[in-house]
């Protein structure tokens, strides 16, 4: 045991490990906060969809040769999020169908572009990295870490300030609109925040596993909690805990970062499901 702790302390000496821990925890915290409303609005897969859009945009940026790909990726993802979440009941293709459609189209077009105009010799390696996150999180620069810290703080602040509105919109959008809440504006802000979090989280777990960060903490919390506030707080706690455990385990055992975090989330979900079932009896 002491051996493991020594090993961990040794790793913590490295700045890149500390960076990975900070970013990992902050990103999962943000994702879990938004996860509650997304799961309840039946948009669980939007994380997946938007991250594929980001993947598509990223490959376009690589092909065009943009030096800073975020200048393209972020606006495109935000636009897709607004399209999906704010189309609402008026959209011709809605909900899961719209998410699925946008998601696979972006994935296909992105992969195609990367194959036609390879930016490096290892196309499948590049694709794999974007899809599974792999070691990207361990190569973060100081600027990226600071950017992540600032954006996470902004997301958490926005969430706290909009908490009551988010509740109203999630529970009953029509009622909120009828009683004079500016539903449209809040939906756009929410969609923007979600897109930002997804783009941030892509580095951590990659496109394919992003949904896990969004849905698992919320679903686990919903097994045992009876109020919206408790679900929100507990899912944040679960998300932070699972990310910490996942990151530490992956550092010590040398497992892939993204999938280790997700496995930790799955384990917590199973435990909470059992606890919830027992308590209900």
């Amino acid at each position, binding site marked *: 045991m002491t051996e493991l702790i020594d090993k961990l302390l040794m790793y913590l000496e490295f700045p890149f490990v500390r960076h990975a821990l900070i970013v990992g925890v902050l990103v999962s915290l943000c994702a879990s906060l938004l996860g509650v409303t997304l799961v309840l*609005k039946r948009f669980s897969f939007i994380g997946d969809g938007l991250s594929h859009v980001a993947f598509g945009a990223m490959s376009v940026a690589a092909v065009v040769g943009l030096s800073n790909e975020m200048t393209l990726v972020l606006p495109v993802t935000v636009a897709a999020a607004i399209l999906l979440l704010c189309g609402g009941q008026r959209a011709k293709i809605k909900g899961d169908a719209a998410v699925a459609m946008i998601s696979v189209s972006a994935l296909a077009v992105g992969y195609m572009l990367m194959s036609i105009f390879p930016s490096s010799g290892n196309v499948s390696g590049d694709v794999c990295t974007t899809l599974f996150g792999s070691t990207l999180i361990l190569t973060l620069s100081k600027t990226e870490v600071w950017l992540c810290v600032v954006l996470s703080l902004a997301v958490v602040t926005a969430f706290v300030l909009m908490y009551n509105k988010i509740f109203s919109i999630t529970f009953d959008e*029509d009622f909120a609109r*009828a009683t004079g809440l500016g539903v449209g504006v809040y939906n756009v802000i929410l969609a923007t925040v979600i897109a930002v979090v997804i783009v941030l989280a892509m580095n951590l777990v990659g496109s394919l596993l992003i949904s896990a960060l969004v849905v698992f903490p919320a679903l686990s919390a919903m097994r045992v909690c009876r109020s919206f506030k408790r679900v929100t707080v507990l899912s944040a706690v679960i998300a932070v805990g699972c990310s910490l455990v996942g990151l530490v385990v992956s550092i010590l055992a040398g497992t892939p970062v993204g999938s280790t975090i997700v496995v930790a989330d799955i384990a917590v979900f199973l435990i909470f499901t059992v606890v919830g079932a027992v308590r209900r009896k």
Partner: protein
Amino acid sequence: MAQISCKDLCLGYESRRIIEDLSFEVHSGDYLCILGENGSGKTTLMRTLLGLHKPIAGAVELGDDLKQSEIGYLPQQTQVQRDFPASVEEIVLSGCGGRRGISPFYTKQDRQTALDAMERMDILPLKKRCYRELSGGQQQRVLLARALCATKKLLLLDEPVSGLDPRVSMDMYRSIYELNKEDGITVIMISHDINAAIRYASHILYIGKEIFFGRSDDFVSGDIARGLLTGGDGR
């Protein structure tokens, strides 16, 4: 001046018109029941009164200093709401949301309003309970309490007793009737239950092949009601 007046209202979606040339007025303290077959446009009419749906032609005018945000609304329940992890208190309090504007938190006064509304609907003991664990009747009372937080003047109710058993339905009707009589809140209700409509409502709006609007006494003695009450189709 009427609280709500609809003039030559024409409702529908895109090219399909559901209701044409509908005019009626609702005065403060009225109890209006909207009757009609499925698909006749009752819910669309209610959504128009709430400002959620734009009429193709005509207009809805609010009078008596009634603001759009001062209308309480009890919608039909959605699947999402049935298993929503929220406490009764949180849901009722969200009725105050519209009044808060962009200010992010509820005030002490809002919390008191919510407590009063729960007290009024006899659900105060359920305050901390989780919404999804309540019975259908209790859930409707929670949503009605939320609507009361949003208004002191006008309630719009979309089939408030659908899916409830007869005894619970009667309790619900009685509560709504008391809100109308004792608190002087105007009630506009969509209903399928013609007997309860005639019993409690002061006015009836029937939407079908023919449109009827008037006092419920006049409705009872009219042709449409005779057809409906004897089991015919009202023509």
